[in-house]
């Protein structure tokens, strides 16, 4: 009667089935290492040569954005928007025009006003409103929305975000070290967090998604989620390894592996349950609204949750094992367990 995952969970819990996450850790290190290197090298060094790589939204580069909503004109005809913009700015400004939803157009331009005013932006908004036959600013049903971003605003957001990131990392390292009573779990957790952030940002760079403040919010949420996931699995590892003694039948690495296996069903369930609402935001955001806050946050989170779940199992837990297995006590225990096992195998060969 139980679902496939339930009996899979049974087997994992009872130890009837065990996946060797820890034993094959060299393989995962290589996989993750390659992924991190690719996430850094491709968007930063290789892709820019072809004109791709990290694309920052106008919030970071500065510029103007106009969103036309509820137009009855032919929105597929992007020349309409281009003509309207260039009627104000002249041909040196090449606007980026994108169709949004079923009756909207989004127009992005470089910074139109350099003197801190919004004179030219206002005129472009008016021209667009005329071209698409919608009022400026919008009324209850349709209209032109405009946004203008100065060139330093994005830097200010990023500066705040990076400062927040560093303070968070320090605080969370302390909290985890105190809670788990070992700094090694902190290190393993934070390494896997950095791994998640680099890969998520790398995917953005490789695919060419625009990095907007909303995407930055998404990145920051990955901080919380990635560590949250790691803490849940580490708590089980702590529980299983806390009273590891000479009389145990398992080595330290095997105990960690068992904990990872025992929480595997939880990890799968949690990531699916976490992904479902985000996937629905992503879907709705993309189909109904087009580019915007909803899509940008959910895209970053969608990638981040998948990478975060992976890294807890394949990076954080193996790394913790490696950090601990150099300790003399752990080394001794491992040797005794292995010795005992060999002796037992000699004693009772029938069972083999």
């Amino acid at each position: 009667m139980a679902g496939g995952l339930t009996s899979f969970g049974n087997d994992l819990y009872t130890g009837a089935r065990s996946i060797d996450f820890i034993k094959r850790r060299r393989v995962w290190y290589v996989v993750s290492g390659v992924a991190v290197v690719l996430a850094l090298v491709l968007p930063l060094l290789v892709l820019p040569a072809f004109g791709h790589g990290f694309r920052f939204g106008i919030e970071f580069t500065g510029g103007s954005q106009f969103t036309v909503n509820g137009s009855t004109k032919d929105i597929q005809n992007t020349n309409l928007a281009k003509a309207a913009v260039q009627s104000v700015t002249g041909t040196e400004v090449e606007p980026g025009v994108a169709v949004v939803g079923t009756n909207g157009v989004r127009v992005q331009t470089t910074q139109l006003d350099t003197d801190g005013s919004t004179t030219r932006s206002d005129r472009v908004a008016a021209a667009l409103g005329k071209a698409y036959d919608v009022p400026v600013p919008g009324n209850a049903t349709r209209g032109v929305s405009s946004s203008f971003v100065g060139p330093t605003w994005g830097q200010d957001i990023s500066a705040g975000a990076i400062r927040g990131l560093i303070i968070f990392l320090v605080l969370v390292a302390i909290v985890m070290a105190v809670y788990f009573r070992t700094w090694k779990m902190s290190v393993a957790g934070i390494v896997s967090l950095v791994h998640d952030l680099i890969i998520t940002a790398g995917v953005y760079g490789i695919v060419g998604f625009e990095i907007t403040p909303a995407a930055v919010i998404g990145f920051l949420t990955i901080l919380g989620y990635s560590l949250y996931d790691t803490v849940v699995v580490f708590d089980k590892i702590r529980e299983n390894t806390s009273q590891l003694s000479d009389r145990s039948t398992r080595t330290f690495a095997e105990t960690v592996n068992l904990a990872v296996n025992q929480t595997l069903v939880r990890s799968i369930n949690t990531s699916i349950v976490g992904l479902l609402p985000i996937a629905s935001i992503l879907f709705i955001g993309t189909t109904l609204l087009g580019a915007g806050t909803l899509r940008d946050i959910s895209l970053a989170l969608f990638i981040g949750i998948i990478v975060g779940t992976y890294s807890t199992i394949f990076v954080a837990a193996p790394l913790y094992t490696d950090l601990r297995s150099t300790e003399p006590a752990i080394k001794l225990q491992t040797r005794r367990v292995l010795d005992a096992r060999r002796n037992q195998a000699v004693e009772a060969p029938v069972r083999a």
Partner: protein
Amino acid sequence: MPSTVTPKRHARRALTGLVVIILLGLGLNSIGVFTSTASTFAGKAESLLPKLGLDLAGGTQIILAATTENGGNPTADQLSQSVAIIRQRAAAGGSPDAQISTQGGRFINVSLPGTPSQATINSVREAARMDFRPVLLTDAAATASAGTGDKPYTPPASLGNTPSAKPTNGSDLSQVTPYLQNEFDNYRCAAENKPAQVKASVPLVTCDNTNTQKFLLGPVEVPGTGISGATAGLQTTSQGATTGTWVVNLTFNSTGTQQFAKISERLVGLQPPQNQFAILLDGKVISAPTMNAAITNGKAEISGSFTEDSSKELASQLKFGALPVNFTVQSQNTISATLGSSQLLAGLIAGLIGLILVFVYAVFQYRLLASVVLASLGIGAVLTFIVLDFLSWREGYRLSLAGVTGIIVSIGITADSFIVYFERIRDELREGRSLEGAVETGWRRARRTVLASDAVNLLAAGVLFVLAVGDVQGFALTLGLSTLIDVLVVVLFTHPMLQLLARRPFFAEGHAFSGLDPRALGAVYRGRGQFRAPLAAGGREGRSVGEAQRRQTIAERKAADLGADTKGRS
């Protein structure tokens, strides 16, 4: 049996506590509804909902960076003074609901709801300006004049606007041309919406900031930059004794002292109202004192019917003139109400779909226990609503799109607490415990994990909230809030519910659809419908073995038992 009574009593107590919390929250919020200023019932009902941020309700958001004249960052005092001035301008422009807040030490976030006029938007982002002008004419403002509507008055163009003779100084009445006289006579303060910056070299018709007095003023004679400071205090006589009246002491810098000496020497000999000088902030007269003596040392004392508060207010306004702050527009965002409402709708649809998907998955995984998941998420939603409502009422919180996203994202994180808990119960069932025992033991283990992981989440939200600006803050708030509520729901609802459900035969006997069927979970089977007794010691190691040892895997235990048996026989 006492061991079964205690969980039940605990569960009842917890659930009662939860009901009390919810009722208290609702009661507190309904005070807000009854005291709401809305006159209609619909208006009152609306105040029951959290207020929406600009990106959902539509409006204009302007983020201004404030810089001092030499390009440095303004002090906190200057920034809050700027906020006060912008608030006045927004209110004057017909946006009394404007949300104005400071961010990150030098930014001012101005949110104008609805569709503010271009003039309002312009006035908000202009630098504040203080000027001193001599008074030429003054009169009580007409409250209302018939027939002309609310449009600003424009004098007929036929009237001449060139002075009959070249004015000799700023107080010369020859500046009052027929055109200006006509404008002054017909000027209605309420209808006018003068730009904050007016040309300094020409006369100006304007009103005081309460719209009770109108003025015809000469050109600017001392700009605000001439002020070096202003304080409010009690008047002291030359002997140093206080007279008990509040005054504002104004000091000028060297340029200001010279300029003010010139105007003061001239004005002191003139007839009223020409012996008055007007202090203008943003083109409105904030004070028009009479010049009683020629002041050449740059230290003026303004007296009048001041209270402590009004003197302090004027002093702080004058200080603003001394400390000019320039605003540059960092970001301006106009969101049409359509876009806002379609985003809110999309957010709500996404949330609903997400919730349904989570529920379907929970049914697939946990059968009837999924109803506990759904009910817990529901209770969480109610609590979130109550808190947001309260924040919206007391703290002026506005729910933004980023905030909505935070709530949707937290569905997953909240549901994870249940997953951790349920998986622990299942683990205990696999160990062969009865359901009631499994719920208690599973809870003790799960609680630790849930609290630790939620603490990390809360830390993330807290750091983001304190350090971040704008949207990030709104997101961090709802995320942190949801995390706290998650803890509350798990402790006060999910666990007590399971304690109660564990006593129902449907769950206790492990019905196939209960999601807690020991057979499906592969519990250690000991024949004749008996499952392994809890904490199966029984082996040769006895009770001295540590917890970790006891919790060896079931496969190992089976093997160990088998090994013991074979050894025993051999």
